[in-house]
């Protein structure tokens, strides 16, 4: 059963109210613009009823209050780089876009904190505090375009989260507009505010607990010294075993990334960095810190790699070479366009020691479905990113892509892993939640949602499978797996 979209008259009345509260050109209902906001960076499309662009907390409150009055759900949206359909609007929802709230409000360079608006772009924040020797640690591959608000909603990760932790470890306080339009302060600059950790509960809630309008972030000291090295291996297993051995030896590198052969070949053809295209797998390792510990770690990592059969070890000799090696990692998604026009990026986590076994399964699954896969992923924390490449004009290919994806998710969970390491659940994996959680587990998460959003109008139908989301009616949007 599918809920009918909100009546056109309701949408019109809501739009009129919003135009009274916001500058009229910040409320859009044209078909072209609604089309632009019908999905995020996932393949899952919905339907936006209205798109609005508030510029202040008060305007966000006005939008939410109006939506609540008309019983229209709202979806907060940053840059729309999410990959799980978390910002895909359903049923002609109101899309509240935070991109115009993009100011860095204050920076405390001594205590290394900053208050920012949610629309500030991740890399812009790092650039704005670079002169203080600081940066914002979470660095998703989309960091040039993703917003801090989106990072909060998805608890985003990135290569350098291996040593520094994901977004949740870098958020101290939040100003949030709840679904009744009221404003609440969750956490603050204080390390351990009295009472329940509401700020911790909010991070990663995928827009279903409210809208963050101000964010207090922790800034991280830039490392005095950095070494980046590339090691290549004749087998994927040898590369993966090297990862486990490095961690077991008591080192937590700043980043520990892996690319398989097809990925290395695509990247090399794209950026010409002299990458070893003959190798089955390449490890990109970055060590950061004080000079003596750093050199000792590099020596041990090279030793461990060599013991596991590393072919060549390339240590970046200067910042330019380091940037080139990272460009290889971070442009992988652009490079694959040379192979096939479309891709589907997956995101699961497995225990590190299961990486060889699960990667073997990934190759087998993909071959069985007659698809191509490139693996480029955060090996250090077991966070797989199989990238299925295809041409969607090929008849029947989407069915094969979805079938292979589902098998990869199931194989990861069966290996003791989890559904998502950093992309979130959204719509994409909503109905896989029972693979990890039983009815009582899901009921507890649904209870959290009800406490924050009793009306159920903040980004409904996401994350929780329908049986757990009491009151939410099943909705299967275009492009979803289910």
């Amino acid at each position, binding site marked *: 059963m599918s809920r009918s979209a909100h009546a056109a008259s309701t949408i019109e009345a809501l739009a009129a109210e919003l135009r009274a509260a916001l500058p009229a050109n910040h409320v859009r209902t044209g078909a072209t613009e609604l089309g632009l906001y019908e999905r995020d960076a996932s393949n899952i499309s919905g339907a936006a009823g209205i798109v609005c662009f508030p510029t202040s907390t008060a305007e966000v409150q006005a939008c939410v209050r109006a939506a609540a009055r008309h019983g229209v759900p709202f979806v907060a949206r940053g840059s729309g780089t999410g990959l799980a359909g978390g910002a895909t609007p359903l049923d002609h929802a109101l899309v509240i876009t935070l991109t115009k709230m993009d100011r860095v409000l204050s920076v405390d360079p001594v205590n290394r904190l900053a208050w920012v608006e949610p629309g500030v772009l991740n890399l812009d924040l790092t650039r704005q505090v670079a002169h203080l020797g600081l940066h914002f640690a979470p660095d998703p591959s989309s960091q040039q375009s993703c917003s801090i608000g989106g990072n909060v909603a998805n608890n985003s990760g990135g290569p350098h989260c291996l040593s520094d932790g994901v977004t949740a470890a870098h958020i101290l306080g939040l100003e949030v507009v709840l679904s009744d339009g009221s404003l609440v302060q969750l956490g603050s*600059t204080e390390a351990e505010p*009295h009472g329940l950790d509401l700020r911790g509960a909010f991070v990663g809630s995928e827009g279903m607990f409210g809208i963050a309008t101000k964010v207090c972030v922790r800034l991280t000291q830039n490392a005095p010294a950095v070494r980046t090295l590339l090691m290549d291996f004749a087998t994927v297993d040898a590369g993966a075993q090297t990862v486990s051995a490095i961690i077991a030896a008591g080192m937590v590198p700043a980043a520990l990334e892996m690319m398989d052969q097809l990925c290395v070949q695509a990247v090399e053809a794209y950026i010409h960095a002299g990458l070893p295209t003959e190798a089955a797998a390449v490890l990109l390792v970055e060590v950061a*810190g004080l000079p003596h510990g750093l050199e000792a770690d590099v020596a041990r990592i090279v030793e461990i790699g060599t013991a596991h059969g590393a072919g060549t070890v390339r240590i970046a000799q200067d910042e330019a070479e380091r940037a080139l090696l990272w460009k290889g990692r971070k442009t992988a998604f652009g490079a694959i366009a040379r192979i096939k026009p479309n891709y589907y990026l997956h995101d699961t986590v497995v225990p590190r020691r299961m990486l060889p076994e699960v990667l073997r399964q990934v190759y087998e699954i993909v071959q069985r479905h007659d698809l191509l896969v490139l693996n480029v992923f955060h090996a250090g924390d077991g966070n797989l990113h199989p990238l299925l490449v295809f041409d969607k004009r090929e008849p029947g290919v989407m069915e094969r892509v979805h079938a292979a994806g589902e098998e990869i998710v199931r194989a990861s969970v069966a290996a003791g892993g989890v559904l998502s*390491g950093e992309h979130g659940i959204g719509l994409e994996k909503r109905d896989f939640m029972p693979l990890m959680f039983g009815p009582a587990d899901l009921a507890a998460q649904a209870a959290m949602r009800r406490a924050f959003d009793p009306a159920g109008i903040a980004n409904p139908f996401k*994350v929780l499978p329908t049986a757990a989301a009491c009151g939410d009616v099943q909705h299967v949007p275009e492009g979803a797996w289910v």
Partner: protein
Amino acid sequence: MGVIDLTTFAAEVGADGPVTISGLGTRGGPVPEVRCVRAPSGIDWVQPDEMTVACGAATPVDELVAALAEHGQTVALPPGGTVGGALAVGHSDVRRLGYGPVRDVLLQARYVSAAGEVVKAGGPTVKNVSGFDLPRLLVGARGTLGFLGDVIVRTRPLPQHSQWFTRATDDPSATFQLLYKPISVLWDGGAVWALLEGHPTDVAEQAALAGMVACKGPPPLPTGSRRVIPPAAVLACTGRFVAEVGVGIVHHTDPWEPPARDARAAALAAALRHELDPSGRLNPGIDV
């Protein structure tokens, strides 16, 4: 890999009537005059290459730390008491600046709910965004949302070298700015202490850069109150205190009342408690 059986613990918690939980009683102990239960104890497994460990909630922190030390690892929980108690109270120790807050340690918890059911929150891997972050809500909830049965926590490598240093100063921020990722920086108004970890030469060079000399450790922490203030306010502390610089936790000889919470936040917290424990039977009377 064994799995701790929580059936008996769940049956003891039951579904009716007020109930409280006790660990080693080091962090306030159970609610008096209420039926008291204990969580399972013991280490289930240690996985050094995953940097994770699973144990019953009543496992003593010191036992866990000793077991991890055999693998060259440790856990960022304050010493003493039980793992469950440390998580339920959620107070970090003086290494918070470098080791992070207690809430970053918990990866997965299985707890017994107010309905007497075993509920799993989070997942076993060091990285996981599958579903809402219930584990963070459990840390610091003092058992009011559920009683922890067993947990999977994140470990960290033991440092190669670890040493406290000190110098006299009335400006701790100057010292703080000179150090790269110190584990702890404490200040009592007249002297600063820093815990530095890592390669011995780096540690020595950092200390020399900040003009600090090696010492046994910081002075005993005053126990009158543990104040949580904005880190920028540390410089304005008066009286007898030891403050965690860069964190904003102040150990003071005088008592202290935390400032009143944002009323809307308090209502949210009450709503969460009501959703997860409608009759208020878990650790009744505990204020969170």
